[in-house]
């Protein structure tokens, strides 16, 4: 059994190509794949940043060709168009231990665009569930993915890889949580309606902030955002009144002079009876005068401040990544041991069958001559089975252990040779035992 992983991600393939290969429903692709003889099990992970196929196969070369053709024909349902020639150069391929490590790294978010982001684990779980539901994932890939999920959990609990936010929007939300106990009763004022404002709005909504007002020069754009996020739309002339109510102010509008001056902020603070105000200024040039920092109840962070925190957090994540990689390495070795031990399964199964055949044959020869009643026959059956099991127990356990090591393969080969497990029939092996029994 071999593991094979072929895929592409944000580092190897342009968005244009990834978009064409992304699939919403993996089931048809997976069913078609496992219907072929060369693929025993398969899981397809398709996200905005990666498309990967993990398969279990006995014929690695045939599976490679099959999986690559799946990328070319089955995933790109509308055709690859002009990017088809780029496909081969964008695909990476891992086998066995490397494939295991990759799956573990992906689930642990070590291979993500933003290292430590939590979504990938959920996406990996969804991909595995889809494969199970359509019958494409069996016990071995099942074990691999469960191990990957457990590894991801370990990485998350034993390192701080996901603790600190690294996007400007998430940093802003994190800072707001250091000022306010909860967002449930807080009001936000968003000044502007650009892309950054929209991103921050999504992050604030996600954090539980519900009362949001959007003010913009162009009322239509403010209205569009307001409708999209269930906020209220306002013109800039309403700013002083809105400011008095706003606990979080997020501003990003054009203009050479800051609109949030110290005098404006002081008036707002008086009106709001000195309740604290968190000002996130992501405008360039700045929308809030740095002089408002002198006001005790105003906490102002501009784009540089947020970016500095985000960079520091990203640096912290990189430091934690080294620790996470060690966990992944250890977990990969554990899984590798289990996977390697599977090599011993056919030998053990054949050896058991061979010995059982001998035992049953010998018992069958002897019992008619002994003229035993049923109870005595059962006792003889049980006795011979117990002897066989006791004799086989130690060597079979040892075989399983040895199979986990690459050097242990030789023991499997020796066992097969000694017990003639690769012989076309059992006669030559049984006869000597039979003669011995006869003599006895």
């Amino acid at each position: 059994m071999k593991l094979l992983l072929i895929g592409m991600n944000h580092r190897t393939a342009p968005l244009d190509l990834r978009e064409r290969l992304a699939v919403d429903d993996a089931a048809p692709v997976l069913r078609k794949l496992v219907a072929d003889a060369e693929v025993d099990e398969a899981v397809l992970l398709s996200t905005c940043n990666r498309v990967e196929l993990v398969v279990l196969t006995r014929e690695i070369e045939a599976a490679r060709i099959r999986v690559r053709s799946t990328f070319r024909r089955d995933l790109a349902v509308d055709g690859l168009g002009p990017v088809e020639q780029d496909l081969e150069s964008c695909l990476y391929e891992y086998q066995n231990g490397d494939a295991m490590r990759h799956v573990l790294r992906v689930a642990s978010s070590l291979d993500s665009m933003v290292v430590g982001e939590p979504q990938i684990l959920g996406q990996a779980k969804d991909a595995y569930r889809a494969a199970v539901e359509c019958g494409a994932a069996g016990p071995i890939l099942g074990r691999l993915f469960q191990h990957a999920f457990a590894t991801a959990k370990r990485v998350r609990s034993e390192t701080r890889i996901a603790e600190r936010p690294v996007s400007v929007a998430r940093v802003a939300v994190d800072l707001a949580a250091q000022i306010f106990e909860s967002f449930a009763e807080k009001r936000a004022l968003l000044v502007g309606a650009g892309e950054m404002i929209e991103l921050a709005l999504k992050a604030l909504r996600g954090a539980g902030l519900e009362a949001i007002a959007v003010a913009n020069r162009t009322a239509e754009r403010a209205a569009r955002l307001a409708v999209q996020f269930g906020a209220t739309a306002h013109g800039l002339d309403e700013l002083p009144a809105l400011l008095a109510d706003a606990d979080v102010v997020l501003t990003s509008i054009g203009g050479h002079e800051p609109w949030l001056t110290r005098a404006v902020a002081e008036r707002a603070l008086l009106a709001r009876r000195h309740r604290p105000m968190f000002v996130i200024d992501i405008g360039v040039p700045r929308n809030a005068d740095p002089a408002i920092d002198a006001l005790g109840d105003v906490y102002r962070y501009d784009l540089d401040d947020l970016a500095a925190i985000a960079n520091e957090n990203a640096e912290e994540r990189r430091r934690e990544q080294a620790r996470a990689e060690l966990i992944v390495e250890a977990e990969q070795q554990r899984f590798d041991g289990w996977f390697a031990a599977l090599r011993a399964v056919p030998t053990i199964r054949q050896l058991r069958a061979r010995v059982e055949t001998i035992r049953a044959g010998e018992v069958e020869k002897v019992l008619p001559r002994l003229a035993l009643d049923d109870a005595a026959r059962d006792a003889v059956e049980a006795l011979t089975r117990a002897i066989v099991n006791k004799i086989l127990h130690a060597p079979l356990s040892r075989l399983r252990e040895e199979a986990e090591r690459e050097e242990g393969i030789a023991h499997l080969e020796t066992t097969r040779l000694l017990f003639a497990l690769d012989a076309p029939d059992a006669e030559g092996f049984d006869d000597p035992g039979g003669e011995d029994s006869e003599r006895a």
Partner: protein
Amino acid sequence: MVLALEYLTAALYLLASLTAGAGFTVARPVMLRAAVAVLAAGAVAHGAMFTLLHSAEPTPPLTHLPSALSFMAWVGTVAFLLLAWRARLAGLVALVAPMSCLGVAAAVFSTPATTALPGHAAGAGSLPHAHVLLASAGLALLGLAGLAGLSFLVEHRRLKKKRPIVGGAGWPSLEALDRAGAFAVAAGFPLLTLGVITGSLWQRATSGAYFSGNPHETFCLLAWAVYGVLASVRFGARQPAVRCALTSIAGFAFLGIAVLGVELFA
């Protein structure tokens, strides 16, 4: 049994302090929460100790300073636990637990916990007991307000300087610290006021006058008046949170010096 519970309380508070300190240093919120749980276990043992103490006949009035400090530690701990149950305040355990530990340690390392009734309290009925309980509870809550104020100022300064958070996500928000401080003052000052009144009644029962002019009474009354002014300013008109935090710290510092300082150096 009382002594055993007192030692157990001290050990649990110490464990909570160490766990909180470690959790704060390595920025692990889960350790801060564990410290809160250990502190709660300590508070239960501490409460059991006072229950046993108060079932004694006659009930010791805790007029002995270390016993009063131990009681203050218990009230402060229970108040903190109640606040932490309602708000995201687990990080404050890094300050509360050592204070509670010190309060109990004062009683552990002093003369027996079951303090004998001092001679000057004889004939005053339950007034000495009521005075110590009310004043200690008030002081404990105002001490908690001071700790919340101190934490608020440190956190406020960090946010203003745009420095990264220390102690991880378990550290309380500014709003939670401000609310905890306000609650502690709102509950603590009336208790302290009742403590002053019962103290005055106790004085009258023993000497015939409400006010004898000794240093303890003089400084306590002065400290109460100062704190009264600060509390009325805080609640009278909405003040900036920074000023509220400063008044909590200044008020408690003054109370501490006036009440405990005079008591210690008398």
